Each structure stands twice: as structure tokens, then as C-alpha cells.
């Protein structure tokens, strides 16, 4: 059983939480430009690493708020808890975020808003 530190309520038993699966899956804004295979990366494909994994959790039977957790799927160690909309701060979790195959996908590239100057901007 995990003891999870809800960023709002504090340490609570795993029973009170639900896991929402892989974190940091951004919806492609320009989905029309993607092939079906590229869109499937966003819609269907989920990572299942052995080691550090970045997940979304919700404190279902507590404050009912979502947050992100960096968890080692081998040792069950919780490396970091961080807010929705942010990326992790610890080295191990930062490395896991950077190394994810998802960072290279066309779906994720299409999720970044175009710069106000237009497509020619850097």
C-alpha cells in the first residue's frame, strides 16, 4: 500500500486515490495535419516503463483534486508530487520526462500553440 502525499491534504492512504494513467499527454491542436498513425500516438498509445513513470492521480475520497506523481514502477517509490500543468523538478523525474518516446511524436509537436508571429517565427 502506498502512502501518497496529496499536495493539498497531506499524507494519505492509497485507497483514497485513483490513478489517471500517464501524465503529460497534450492534445494536438492541429489534428488535421496529422496522419491517423500519428494521431493514434496521442489517442491510444500509453507508456508502460520499468522505472520512473510520470502519472496523474486524483484524491478521489479526499479533496477530489488532480495532481502529478513521479513513481518508480519497480520499487513503488514516489519520487515527486507536483501540480497539474507543470513539469517535474527532481533530476530522476526530469530525465524520465525528457526520455519519453512521446517527446518525439508529431502529435506532441502539433500540441504546441503556434507563435503569435506565425509559422515563420522561431
Amino acid at each position, binding site marked *: 500500500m502506498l502512502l501518497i502525499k496529496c499536495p493539498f*491534504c497531506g499524507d494519505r492512504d492509497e*485507497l483514497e486515490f485513483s490513478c489517471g494513467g500517464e501524465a503529460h499527454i497534450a492534445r494536438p491542436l492541429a489534428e488535421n495535419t496529422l496522419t491517423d498513425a500519428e494521431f493514434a500516438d496521442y489517442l491510444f498509445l500509453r507508456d508502460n516503463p520499468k522505472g520512473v513513470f510520470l502519472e496523474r492521480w486524483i484524491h478521489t*475520497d479526499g*479533496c477530489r*483534486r488532480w495532481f502529478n506523481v513521479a513513481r518508480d514502477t519497480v520499487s513503488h517509490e514516489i519520487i515527486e508530487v507536483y501540480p497539474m500543468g507543470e513539469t517535474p523538478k527532481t533530476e530522476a523525474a526530469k530525465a524520465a520526462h525528457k526520455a519519453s518516446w512521446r517527446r518525439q511524436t508529431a502529435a506532441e509537436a502539433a500540441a504546441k500553440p503556434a507563435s503569435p508571429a506565425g509559422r515563420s517565427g522561431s
Partner: protein
Amino acid sequence: MASLQNVHGASALHGIAAASSPPPQGSRGAVVMRDTGLLDKINLRCDAGNTVINEALSRVVGTRLPAEPNRFHVSGNRRIAWLGPDEWIILAENGSADTITAGLDLPEAGHVAVNNVSDALGSIILEGEHTRDALAKHCALDFHPTVFTPGIVQQSLLSHAGVTIMCLDDNAFQIIGRSSFMPYIVALLKDAMIEYGYEFQPA
């Protein structure tokens, strides 16, 4: 439209009879569990620092929003309990919800949601030296008297039922649960309290 003026509601535990079990030898006294009966409850969502709401609450309820997590504020028989970083529940006597809501200056308050959840939730109070022992049987929260102290509110599970638990006094706890779960919670706790002795008092 029909008038509801003379229609009286019933507690979520209506129909559950008074019951007791004597304290066996070695018990430090029976736990008294009572149905608090009809109690108004308002769910409030806004920023903790909303000055219009905080000032209105000090005026109408007598206390401001507890910004600190897991805390409740008391003013007479009214209470405001923290439920989340932007969510609270106001507990007040039966029939007061409309007056409280009307006093909140909502048109001036900006981004706020107020919902009367009086009938969605039931409430019981447990008192007695073995209260913490009985609750700890069905809940993973730390009930140690140096941890779960008066003024702390926590949401958790009591066996399978989601509950909000408030520590009112060293040996007194109030439990708020969904109305349809209240008979289950009472049955569960009666069983948990047999080894200490108990008394259940309907509203």
C-alpha cells in the same frame, strides 16, 4: 406552485431506532453516537482570498474561510470547514441556508459557486473515550490525539463510504456522509463499538 412551508423533512437516519450495548468490563465507558437531525449545509467554491465573500461570511456566519488545509472555523453552532484549496462547506442550523446564501453578496463576489447540499448529506456525532478507537477500525486516518486534534477536518473513507470527519473535542467527532450511506455508517460503527459499549440516539 404548492407551498412547502408546512412540509417537514426527515433525517437521513429517520426510522433507525435507539439502540445500546452495555460497556463490557475493561471499557473506559460507552460511546454515545447521536443523529444530529436536520442540519443545513452549503457547499461554497471560490478563491480563499475573496474579500467580498470573507467579509460577508464574518457578518453572516461569524467567521471567515479557513485558508489552511484540513481546518474548520467555529462560530456558535455554525461552522466553515475546508474541503479543498477552493472549496468549503458551511454547517448551520436547520432552515438557515437561504438566509446565509442571501447574505453572501453574491452579485459583488465574482467567481463563486454556492450550492445548498443540506439534504444530500447526513450527520452524526460520536462522544466518549473510545471514539477514536472505534473510528480507527474503519478509517486509515491517523486518529492519535496528538495528530487529529480539535479544529481539524479530514475527508476520507469509513470502510466503503466517503465521509468528512471533524474533531470537535478531544473525544468528540462529527461525521458527515451522503444521506443514503448514513444507515450503513451507523450499522458499521455500532458493530465497531460493541467491545466498548455504545448508545445510539436518534434525532
